[in-house]
């Protein structure tokens, strides 16, 4: 099929980048940055090409090694996949540019880029694969690389957080593996479309319910839904800032939220009970994460708790299951990946110049670091839902969808937590950027050029992000993803058709 040759590149390019970096980066220092940035730039460009191809040709499939699915492994590029690829690879590109300057203070930068691309390859693999066991393998590649990256500083706190994260996520992966084993024993196939086909024919058995519970535990742990969130507030702040941005910005979404969406909506088929469970978990994460974030004084820890809260919004929107709710959830997913990456990069910039993460020790930094201050304010306003920034529109859509569906209780909580989010980010702005400059920070300078460049780009996307909702822009980017989910198990028929 025309253009389907692009599909395996999303896994091959990052793995190739990781390989080249580990081979050459140790010998030639300058080469590390060049390989790192060019690889992520190629991926970013490829994802935009993939989006175009999807809009021109519809769904694309690729058979790995020429073995036809359902016997071989299939890779599928549909609307949701194209949307997620653009989100992940764009954020990864900005973060790779940022790392050029930021990672100077660590030794062996090439190891950082190698692990970074292994993680990116795993995430792209999870997104693009059409085979459920292959999904598990890519999920583990991304997860193992992220354990190592959390421990990258090898100081006391990093190691403690990495151990906690690694043990909890390994248990989560085990639940996923058991769920896959149960589904396989029932359907005798691993291809997701074929599996969905057989499940639809044989009706809902108890074994599917068991597998669903295991998947909610496993992927819920990866997505850090309350009550599976305990690892996140330790792991995300302990990592170096670009990795925190990567983990909070895209990893929990591609491993957790995307996998939940794909398996529940497209393979098993969503019904009212699943929808109710997802919405409850989403609302719970939203409330608990928001309340816990409010009391934090460590900037990165506050951002990490806020991630839990925002993931709650996404799951609440997607779990609602109406087209508008799914659209809002996906749009919020995109926006959150932009502004949460930006906020973590801001916190990294502050740590880079002042060496502290404690909000009480900061103050007046906006006057010495104007760009960090401005981008920080833009991101904070965006996440808090102030018009006209992008976060406002996605939250508005989710709340409108909740009201339309008659879920007034959830809508009420979504509004309350939105106000709470505003409160916590006003706190961040007040203590970090405004106020009187402390004497200790009299001589600090703005961060180097590449960090500025990356933060500036992300801030621009935050400002113009709301434009994606205009009918001309919405069609190619969001609509395809929303249709892929709201059509549910029609995915099965479309994929099986395009394999033939």
């Amino acid at each position: 099929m025309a253009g389907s040759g692009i599909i395996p590149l999303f896994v091959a390019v990052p793995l190739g980048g990781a390989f080249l970096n580990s081979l050459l980066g140790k010998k030639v220092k300058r080469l590390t940055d060049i390989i790192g940035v060019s690889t992520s730039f190629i991926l970013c460009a490829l994802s935009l090409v993939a989006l175009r191809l999807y809009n021109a040709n519809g769904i694309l499939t690729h058979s790995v090694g020429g073995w036809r699915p359902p016997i071989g492994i299939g890779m599928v590029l549909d609307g949701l996949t194209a949307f997620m690829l653009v989100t992940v690879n764009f954020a990864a590109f900005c973060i790779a540019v940022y790392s050029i300057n930021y990672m100077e203070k660590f030794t062996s930068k090439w190891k950082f880029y190698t692990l970074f691309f292994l993680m990116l390859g795993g995430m792209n693999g999870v997104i693009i694969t059409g085979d459920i066991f292959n999904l598990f393998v890519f999920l583990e590649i991304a997860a193992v690389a992220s354990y190592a990256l959390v421990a990258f500083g090898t100081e006391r706190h990093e190691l403690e957080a990495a151990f906690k994260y690694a043990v909890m996520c390994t248990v989560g992966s085990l639940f996923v593996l058991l769920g896959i084993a149960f589904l396989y024993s029932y359907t005798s196939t691993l291809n997701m479309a074929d599996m969905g086909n057989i499940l639809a024919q044989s009706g809902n058995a108890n074994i599917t319910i068991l597998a669903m519970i295991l998947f909610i535990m496993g992927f819920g742990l990866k997505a850090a839904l309350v009550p599976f969130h305990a690892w996140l507030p330790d792991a995300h702040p302990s990592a170096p800032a670009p990795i925190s941005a990567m983990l909070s910005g895209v990893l929990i979404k591609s491993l957790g939220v995307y996998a939940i969406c794909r398996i529940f909506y497209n393979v098993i088929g969503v019904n009212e009970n699943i929808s109710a469970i997802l919405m409850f978990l989403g609302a719970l994460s939203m409330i608990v994460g928001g309340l816990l974030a409010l009391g934090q004084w460590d900037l990165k820890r506050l951002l990490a708790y806020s991630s839990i809260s925002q993931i709650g919004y996404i799951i609440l929107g997607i779990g609602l299951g109406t087209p508008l709710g799914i659209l809002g959830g996906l749009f919020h997913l995109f926006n959150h990946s932009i502004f949460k990456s930006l906020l973590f990069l801001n916190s990294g910039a502050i740590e880079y110049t002042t060496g502290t993460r404690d909000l009480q020790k900061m103050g007046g930094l906006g006057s010495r670091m104007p760009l960090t201050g401005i981008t920080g304010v833009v991101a904070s306003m965006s996440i808090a839902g102030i018009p006209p920034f992008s976060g406002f529109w996605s939250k508005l859509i989710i709340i409108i969808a909740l009201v339309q569906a008659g879920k007034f209780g959830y809508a009420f909580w979504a509004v309350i937590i939105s106000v709470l989010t505003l409160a916590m980010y006003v706190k961040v702005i007040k203590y970090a950027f405004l106020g009187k400059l402390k004497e200790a920070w009299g001589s600090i300078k703005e961060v180097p050029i590449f960090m500025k460049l990356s933060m500036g780009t992300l801030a621009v996307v935050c400002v113009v992000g709301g434009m994606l909702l205009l009918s001309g822009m919405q069609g190619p980017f969001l609509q395809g993803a929303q249709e892929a989910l709201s059509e549910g198990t029609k995915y099965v028929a479309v994929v099986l058709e395009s394999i033939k």
Partner: protein
Amino acid sequence: MSIYLLCLILFSCGIYCILRKRNIIKIIIGVIIAEYAAHLFLVLVAYRMRGRSPIFSAEAEIKNMVDPLPHALVLTAIVIGLATTALLIGIAMRIYEKYGTFDITRIRELKG
């Protein structure tokens, strides 16, 4: 049936070990036990009572064959488990260097 229950008990042993033990090395052993139980379950899924080995030949009729696919899956899962375990032990060694103990009740500087 009883063999599935034994597999479940093995998995529960692993989870119990992760949740209750205070020594980091014991927690890692718990992870390994739970992992092996999951792998064992995958192999059990493939098992057929008095089945024959899955080798295709022209004259033999295809009947009551052991499912070969989960064996391939288990091999992959074992390799992934190896990587995870190696990383966990590496982190545990570094933790011992920094904190001088394996007791998780004394390794808790992160909270809030």
